[in-house]
């Protein structure tokens, strides 16, 4: 579950929503609806750095001895509902659900990040393809390498399906 303030910030809603503000009811309803739609899953593997394809390893991971690769997703239902809202011109609802699910995925990753760091000790930042020196279009081979069954990546753009999915990695110094 994401912090509400993060959800609201991402949806560009600032300040307190008063009780008679109709937006508050929608914001809360979307939060609750999101909880019923998600089917979160994480696929991961921790490997010696020599076992990881060189094309996956960012320069920032210099000195790392092992790497955890992981892919996370909220599932397809939330994508479908966002599309459904869009098709019915319910733009506010779709925008809120999009913001909520983005923050939910972030919360999922943060929680898993904490678990990994507790187990592996000192590590690098959490890194995703598409930033820095690793192109986003490695996503397809990244998912194939991890053998992830329920997340697809476009071979050229690297865009993930379900949309609310991520690929990440953390390097470990010990």
């Amino acid at each position: 579950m994401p912090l509400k303030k993060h959800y609201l910030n991402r949806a560009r809603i600032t300040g307190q929503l008063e009780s008679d503000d109709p937006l508050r009811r929608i914001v809360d309803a979307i939060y609750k609806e999101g909880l019923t739609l998600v089917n979160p899953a994480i696929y991961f593997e921790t490997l010696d750095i020599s076992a990881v394809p060189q094309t996956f390893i960012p320069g920032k991971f210099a000195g790392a001895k092992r790497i955890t690769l992981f892919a996370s997703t909220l599932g397809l239902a939330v994508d479908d509902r966002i599309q459904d809202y869009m098709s019915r011109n319910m733009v506010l609802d779709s925008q809120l659900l999009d913001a909520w699910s983005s923050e939910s995925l972030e919360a999922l990753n943060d929680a898993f990040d904490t678990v990994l760091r507790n187990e592996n000790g000192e590590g690098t930042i959490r890194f995703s393809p598409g930033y820095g020196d690793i192109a986003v279009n490695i996503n397809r081979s990244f998912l194939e390498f991890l053998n992830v069954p329920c997340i697809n990546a476009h071979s050229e753009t690297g865009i993930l399906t379900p949309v609310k999915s991520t690929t990440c990695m953390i390097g470990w110094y010990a």
Partner: protein
Amino acid sequence: MKRSEFLDILDKKVLVLDGGYGTQFMKLGFGGIPGEVLNLQNPEAVEKVHRSYVEAGSNIILTNTFSANSLKLRALGHEKDMIAINRTAVAVARRAGGRETLVFGDMSSCGEFPVPAGTMDFDACVDIFRTQASILASEGVDGLIIETMSDIKELKAALLGVREASPDLPLIVHMTFDETFRSVTGTPPEAYAALFDDLDCDVIGINCSVGPAVSLDIIRKIATHTSKPLSVEPNAGAPIFDGVKLTYNETPEDFAMYTEDFISAGCRIIGGCCGTSPDHIKLISHFATSGRNLKTARTPVQIITSRTAIATMDPFITIGERINPAGRDRFQKQIVDMNFSQVLDEAASQKLQGATVLDTNLGIEKLLTPEHFVKVINELDRASSLPLSLDIQTPSMMELAARHYSGRPLLNSARVTDKNLPRRIEILKKYGGMLVLLAMGKEIPETARGRFDVIMEGIRILEDAGISRHRVLADALVMSFGAGKDPSVTLETFKLLNEEGIKTTCGLSNLSFGMPDRSYLNGTFLTQALDRGLTSAIMNPGDEFVMGCLYGTLSLAGKKLTRADVRVSENPLVNILLEGNAEKLLKEIKDLCNINDPVIVSQEILGKAMEEIGILYGNGKIYLPHLLLAAQTSQLSFDHLNSLLAGEVESKGRVLLATVEGDVHDIGKKIVGTVLKTGGFEVIDLGKDISAQKIVEKALELKPDIIGLSAMMTTTVGRVSEVAAALKAADINAKLICGGASMTSDLAIKFGADGFAKNASFVTDLCLKILN
């Protein structure tokens, strides 16, 4: 734990309270035993539930003593075990909580309301809470909580009792409000917050009745009227019964998503009430410790309140002066004779004329006893009066009136002398309220600067005693123009005080004492005073010229005066019923009987007026105290009509009411009974904790058309099913209806009932539909 230590913790972090106990006991298979009795019969079960909350992240757990006061335990047949139950509860909670978890002693309603909402003596109510609090305190709890209180006066009694037993322990107070933002006896959250901001408690909050979304709305209303830390324990939504077990519709995730909102609104303690579980608490704990946004201090809005009404300072408070027998010998004699009919008349008429507060002066106090002051306070409270200004000279009588008052009063008044002001400060500190501070010490200063200095000296003394200047209405002293006093001194004093941000008042009519054309003098002076920042006046709202000057001057300044919600009906009898003036109503009824058949008067005139009262209540136009008042007010007239008719009046049906076995809550059922009587039904109330067998016996004997069952607790709702089966087995055809805090429409159908009323406002319609 010291109160200052507790408040220091709340400055730095949010504390997580525990969740529901009833549903957890049910899960463990103890649904049939009163929760408090479990402390003695199966303390291991109680400890197990405590531990589950500690493991979920509760920083505070509550002792299993919610209903362990002498009155409730008497109803359960366990009064003799009261000390043992409370002592064991503390020991069990302490064992489960270990060193890290705070243990707070839990207390709640006696099950009866003090006068006038109920029949219990106020001081007896104080005693009940003092007794329980002293046991819990002596057993070493870290603090105390009084929760799920639906009557503001009972909560005030509870607080006074707790503070007599334990002045030094942290104290949390909670009321419960429904989705209309009112307590059962009609109090809005703002009025509750304003009074308890003054009283000697540390944290103000709410619990039960509603889920987190509505709780948040209520908390935000409370937050504007107190600077104290807030606390909240919502229900997990509405109960759902699948035929075997009871669950609630708010999942832990649904529930926890409001945690940040509560913190932003000022909550420093968050937990759960009915239907919440360790899973709910675990998630609350997660959100309470991540992403905290602890707000800075709030400045409460100053209001004067009664049980049901609020008078705001902005832009002006009109304090009606007519409850004062000075110069009216007959009125004084009535008061001495304990006849408060004219007091109620004056209250009602001034409300219609636009007063927002009522000055209450009973005249020559040497002629009066303490009972006079208690009675008049209760009579005005019963009549759902506007907020009161307690214009009482004798300090002990002022204290008594403040003690029995159900709101945040205006104490009228104090002079700035060593003897006079400290005594009023004592009363303010103990019972709350605002103070009319006179611009005089032993003498009245002749100059505006002199009067201003006296007021500022008084404010300094008040602030040294911990009372904010925002609680002061400074009276710049209007003197008699006819006696040669210069009104410009008073006007200049208003100006000086206004520049300092001090709220002001005056006795307006003093200006024209002994003069002709009083209205013109008073009205003109009022206009000048408003221009200099006057914020209230004790005045005659029946003087149309003066009131016109008030409305006109404020309008020209771009301010709108909000008048109290007056005259809710075009039917004059309805308004008399709502004034609570039984004698006036009886006179009207007797007059009507002179020109109508008594049957017509009873059924078509008074009966219809009572029906309209029921509709007004159902529509939320009036509140429960109004409804109870009208029912009570009508009794004298109905008795008179019945004596004329000798059994000619037919009821709409006979209703048998009972609270199911194992449940001792019967306030709601009594309210339902009153509403049904008001609607023309014959009502027989069997009482509380009534077995299915007894209900069957009485149904066979009395042959009711409808049987109404009440079950408040999650552990007793299932009894309705037993009664339904027993009635069917006995071939009783009466319709069965049910209600209560834990009941729902779905549950009622599953249990075999013919109808369900969410609250008393729906019950008359339900009964009429069922019988038709």
